[in-house]
């Protein structure tokens, strides 16, 4: 089984995120870059699939030079090789441009499964996996809380508002996973050492035969008109319970007309 796993480098979860005044893009330089938390579950799932069925895991990431660290992290968890898509013309890509570039990088490499996280913590769009499935014309099995691979048949439990749907398809397929699915492993010392020797292909738009006009900020089909910090909320009241905490909340709710 040949499995790709797409991982994104994002600003550290706990870092304060802000847009830059000059171009309304996320300020990525001011915070540490880490692997998108949900993509750790995707890497773990890809590794588990290959451990059970045999094959290889290829990690794919699009992002600036330093996203190479994130590719390396997936390799140290156990992925076999990497593809890093990097090009100045990709700066400012929106979800459509990102999906277009990732699909171009994935195409023609005979992947049986392409695994994603279900959401990036910075963009929070949850659309890139569906878009890649659409562009490649392969089955979409997303928001999986469970994945079962049996030969070329893949069945998932897709999380829904009411519970879950059981969805099934044949390979090749796109999968995205939610955090309930597994417990991502930590890279071992041995894994970190081994990762240094694993091959990473660094490619740009030329290698992908993509026209710079279809990616990057120029091709982003939505624009930020303006942005502002939300007005700070007035500090609330916090009291210690002296046996009447419930009554005090009731008073507050009454004052606010909730009861």
């Amino acid at each position, binding site marked *: 089984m040949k499995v790709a796993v797409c991982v994104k480098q994002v600003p550290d979860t706990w870092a304060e995120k802000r847009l830059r005044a000059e171009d309304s893009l996320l300020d990525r330089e001011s915070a540490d870059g880490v692997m998108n938390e949900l993509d750790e579950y995707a890497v773990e799932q890809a590794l588990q699939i290959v451990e059970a069925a045999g094959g290889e895991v290829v990690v794919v990431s699009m992002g600036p030079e330093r996203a190479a660290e994130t590719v390396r992290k997936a390799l140290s968890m156990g992925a076999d090789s990497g593809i890093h898509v990097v090009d100045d013309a990709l700066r400012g890509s929106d979800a459509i441009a990102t999906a277009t570039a990732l699909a171009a990088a994935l195409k023609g490499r005979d992947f049986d499964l392409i695994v994603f996280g279900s959401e990036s913590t910075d963009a929070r769009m*949850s659309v890139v996996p569906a878009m890649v499935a659409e562009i490649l014309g392969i089955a*979409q099995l997303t928001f999986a809380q469970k994945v079962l691979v049996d030969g070329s048949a893949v069945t998932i439990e897709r999380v829904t508002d009411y519970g879950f749907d059981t969805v099934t398809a044949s390979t090749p397929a796109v999968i995205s996973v939610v955090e309930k699915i597994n417990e991502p492993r930590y890279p071992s010392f041995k894994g970190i050492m081994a990762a240094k020797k694993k091959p990473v292909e660094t490619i740009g738009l030329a290698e992908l035969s993509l026209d710079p006009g279809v990616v990057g900020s120029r091709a982003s*089909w939505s624009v930020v008109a303006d942005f502002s910090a939300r007005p700070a909320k007035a500090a*609330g009241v916090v009291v210690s319970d002296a046996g009447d*905490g419930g009554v005090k909340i009731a008073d507050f709710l009454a004052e606010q007309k909730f009861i």
Partner: protein
Amino acid sequence: MADVLVLVEQFGGQVKKATAELMTAARRLGSPVAVWIGPGCDDGALATLGEFGASEVLVADAPQYTDHSVAPIADVLAALVAQRSPAAVLVASSATGKEAAGRLAIKTNSGIITDAVDIAADGTATQSVFGGSTIVHSRVTQGTPIITVRVNSIAPEPQATTPSRSTIDVPVGESSTKARVTERTEATKGGRPELAEAAVVVSGGRGVGSADGFGVIEQLADSLGAAVGASRAATDAGWYPHTHQVGQTGKTVSPQLYIANGISGAIQHRAGMQTSKTIVVVNKDPEAPIFELADFGVVGDLFEVVPQLTEEIKKRAGA
């Protein structure tokens, strides 16, 4: 007036509140055309859509549309975009809504905006990003604007119409039928308002301590007609169903009132509730970060404070 396509959010033929919100926003841009994908669009459903100004209801209920996950929705919407050149396509920000919108954007070479909290008459969308710390106004500059709207963000305003109903019959792409839904499993605890659309949400976290402990949370919820939410710590422990998880990887809620009990306020939890209008906190640790969000907080044991609050609410309701 141009058409505005609205993808109806419904479950088992029950029109969800999100749909009324979408219709309200759609009327600012043009004439709302409701697109119903799935079974169950009966007279009652038609009447509900009429209350909020649907000019037409287009129904796709054949198996080719309903037996597959996500992709056929985008096929239907793309065909309607081609036929009607709508001013915009509005979809709820559910997992399926966002994914269908994403596929539609690719199919129609159109820009997409997700998680809007408001839409102006000129199509400018307002988004609340980075845990609600930043307000962004954005616009689609190419193709048909495709906008997904966060539930509970736009107040539904009724406008009575008598919509016509017609059946959609457009082809579904070969690749759209590759993922087949074989079973739908319901795991939600029923009988209370739905989490994403409830006006009041009462949540419990690790501090609740056990599945039995959620009894006090449910009693408070019932006294307020509220939905019950839970932190991931509580759902992972099996104390409450995963469908009730609030947060980054659970549901995003934006109710009028959110009451957090025994929840510390990890960033992933805040991501799903930070935009609630009023936030009340009960936690025995005065240092818990959730207090930073509180409009009103009590430092105390939830097993003392919450039952007392429930009693007090009942007493005042009876008075």
